[in-house]
């Protein structure tokens, strides 16, 4: 009873500051505490108990409890326990002590909370906007419940430009992005460069925030949202799809059918296979080794075809509904999948051998973009980035979901924390994924694909779900609600944490290493921004000046408030 044990520990230490607690299972712990004690409780959990920081969530709970809600989520990976520390804040002028000084990884989440919900993190050192555009008026917070999903507030000045910090003395500014050949999606790094050395950088992302969470909380229904969730990301969409569904299932105390769990596992691992193969290719492309880029894409292709055979799509599988899955894996597909895996395994062995012996690639990746165990802890880095620094965490083993508790696999780690270690970890994980899928195919039991759910889901319940995406832990937090949709749904994609570690990784190394260092976290900006870009159809031939282009982008139609 580890959850109970932890709770007793808290009670002993903080006594009356703990208001109440909820222990729905031995793997979840929700503790409500007095807002004034948030700093000491979080420090105790993060430093003394050595828990891993996951994410902070702000929620507007005024229509239900009359208060704002803040949750700081932590993971006790060795205990298989996810813990949420919750505070209720008064409805007027909500404020809470910032924990980002004690837990540096919380910096972005607190800035996001301030932007979207309007909960002020008191004592936060860097209170620049993170998500909202710069011309957004003060005091308007889109994720509050009294704001309609399509509102553009009075006084929104969409021409206001982002104000960058002053570069340090003697440094040249190299704008990296918003569009750059190695960034597949818009994100802006302003690099401060001295000669060829990067001395620091400022990051501005969230350029095309889609407002997916708001859309889900105000317009869609429980079973629509999985399809929206997987559109968060073009590479690891299925992860979000599964994570959301699991969070809802947990909140409503539903257990998906065993066959569905195996199918979810298989699809998640197929996704990891294609993602890792894609990443190894891209990493090679970034360091100018296009041959391996092409080869790994060739090896990857049959996986895409298998996904299409199973789900009808190469990507965006539309796999889950609450309580089950929508696609079956037939005996014919099973046989074919086995063949594809055999071929993949032998071809991948050849690639791994070639890369391991290639001095040239190692020269470009060893000792580059280093993030050691201490930084992993402080910045909350996850996934292959953490494992490459020797930090042995993997949600599939630590917080088992779907059928991962019924298969055997190894968690791959490497000691050095540099880009090369990340390459090694990802290359070896491909073999583990193949192993997992094979076991699932062997063990998968017959049975229904979906649960029959007759009753409405109970409102006001909380659910957490951590799913190991190819790039790290993808964490979803759900509070169930009325009208067949959740009250609050917070997505924390892996890149959200890993990106915060990048400035430290690229500091004091050459600009040539910047791209591969950034690439090595396998960044997924769309996950982080929860955004998408829209192509404007262009008509007549015209040479656009920068001002004209800006004007064009700013006069496009938008929904009237």
């Amino acid at each position, binding site marked *: 009873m580890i959850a109970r044990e932890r709770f007793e520990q808290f009670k002993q230490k903080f006594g009356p500051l703990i208001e109440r607690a909820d222990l729905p299972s031995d793997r979840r712990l929700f503790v409500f505490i007095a807002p004034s004690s948030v700093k000491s409780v979080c420090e105790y959990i993060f430093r003394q108990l050595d828990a891993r920081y996951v994410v902070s969530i702000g929620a507007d709970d005024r229509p239900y409890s009359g208060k704002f809600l803040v949750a700081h989520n932590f993971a006790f990976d060795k205990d298989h326990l996810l813990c949420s520390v919750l505070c209720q804040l008064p409805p007027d002028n909500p404020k809470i002590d910032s924990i980002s000084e004690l837990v540096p990884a919380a910096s972005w989440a607190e800035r996001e909370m301030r932007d979207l919900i309007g909960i002020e993190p008191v004592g936060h050192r860097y209170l620049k906007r993170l998500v909202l555009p710069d011309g957004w008026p003060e005091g308007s917070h889109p994720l509050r419940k009294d704001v309609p999903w399509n509102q553009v507030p009075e006084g929104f000045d969409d021409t206001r430009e982002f104000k960058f910090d002053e570069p340090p003395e003697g440094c040249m500014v190299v704008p990296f992005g918003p569009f750059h050949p190695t960034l597949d999606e818009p994100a802006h790094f302003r690099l401060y460069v001295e000669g*060829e050395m990067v001395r620091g950088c400022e990051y501005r992302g969230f350029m095309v925030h889609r407002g997916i969470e708001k859309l889900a909380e105000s317009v869609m229904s429980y079973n629509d949202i999985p399809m929206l969730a997987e559109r968060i990301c073009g590479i690891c969409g299925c992860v979000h799809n599964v994570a959301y569904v699991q969070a809802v299932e947990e909140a409503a105390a539903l257990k998906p059918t065993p066959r569905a769990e195996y199918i979810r596992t298989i699809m998640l691992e197929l996704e990891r296979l294609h993602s890792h193969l894609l990443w190894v290719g891209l990493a090679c492309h970034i360091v100018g*080794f296009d*041959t391996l880029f092409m080869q790994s894409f060739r090896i990857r292709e049959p996986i895409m075809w298998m996904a299409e055979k199973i789900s009808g799509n190469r990507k965006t599988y539309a796999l889950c509904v609450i309580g089950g899955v929508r696609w079956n894996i037939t005996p014919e597909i099973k046989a074919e999948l086995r063949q594809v895996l055999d071929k993949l395994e032998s071809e991948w062995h050849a690639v791994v051998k070639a890369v391991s012996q*290639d001095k040239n*690639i190692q020269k470009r990746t060893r000792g580059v973009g280093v993030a050691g165990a201490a930084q992993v802890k402080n910045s909350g880095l996850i996934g292959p980035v953490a494992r490459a620094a020797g930090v042995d965490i993997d949600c599939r083993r630590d917080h088992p979901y779907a059928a991962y508790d019924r298969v055997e696999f190894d968690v791959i780690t490497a000691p050095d924390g540099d880009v090369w270690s990340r390459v090694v970890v990802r290359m070896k994980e491909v073999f583990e994924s193949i192993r997992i899928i094979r076991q699932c195919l062997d063990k998968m039991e017959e049975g229904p694909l979906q649960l029959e759910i007759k009753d409405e889901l109970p409102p006001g319940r909380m659910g957490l779900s951590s799913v190991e995406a190819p790039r790290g832990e993808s964490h979803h937090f759900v509070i169930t609600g009325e009208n067949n949709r959740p009250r609050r749904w917070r997505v924390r994609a892996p890149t959200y944490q890993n990106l915060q570690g990048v400035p430290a990784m690229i500091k004091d190394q*050459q600009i*040539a290493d910047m791209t591969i260092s950034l690439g090595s976290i396998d960044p997924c900006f769309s996950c982080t921004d929860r955004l998408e870009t829209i192509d404007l159809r262009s008509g007549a031939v015209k040479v656009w000046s920068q001002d004209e282009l800006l004007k064009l982008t700013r006069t496009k139609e938008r929904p009237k408030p």
Partner: protein
Amino acid sequence: MNRSLIAAIAGGLLNVALVLLLAPLAQGLLRKITARIQSRQGPPLLQPYFDLLKLLGKEDIEAGEVPGMQRFAAYLSLAAILTVACLVPMGFTDPMNAAGDVILLIYLLTLCGICTLLAGLASGSTYSLLGISREMMSMIALEPLLAVALVVGAVHLGSLRLAAVLNGSVYAADSFPWSGLIMLAVMLGSFQAFVQCSPFDIAEAETELMEGPLVEYSGPKLALFKYAQMARLVVYGALFVTLFVPWGSRLLFPFGWLLFWAKVFVLVLLVTVVAATHARYRIDQAIRFFAGLLSVSFVALILASYGH
């Protein structure tokens, strides 16, 4: 006298025409072989010709900070490499060898690099500035290598005349040609850098600097630069062959000539295979590599001066 002058000029022009004609073919071959190594179909062999035509037909956008200089750099880059083509014997005659000596050749080759610098400066973008600083660093380390190779030949012969030096002169030592063989190894090691192919395409580095100095180029001017780069591969190939693999070039007309170009294309193949199997170096790694080669080449120079 007059007739030989006319013959020399005609020979030079013939070389220019040949280079212009064959350079895109060499590029096409490079692309096709690269594609095959990467399990791809690859573009048709003649695609570079069409690419150039397409670029030449596009609208000419002056996007840089100093359009005049940008234009000048584009013209100069192609002109410089073609002037080199006039001077290098390509299979059958020694065209225009009376027009200059080895020193001129070295200067002209440096001029090709200078054009890239001009182009980058004229663009005025941060990326192109980074690109030219890299280009400059590698130029400073690279040019001496070629100079030493030529001077080794000149030392053996006691002459700076092009016709003499560009004929396998590096092996013309009194005893066993140690210096020549060392320079052959050095030039083989650095050849990728001279023709700006991976792993030494550092100045352009698409995934880091977005083509560096050429970032603001488009349309016809980009075509000129691309043409110059293609010509560079062929001209440097020819230079390498005349310096280090001269055997058979003096055979009766079609045979010697065919053999010469066959050797150049074998070299292109070699470049392709190396480029396709290597990741790009970082500039400091590359400079360290060049510095190593440079010290080896000085050993060769000393050996040469003692007649080895």
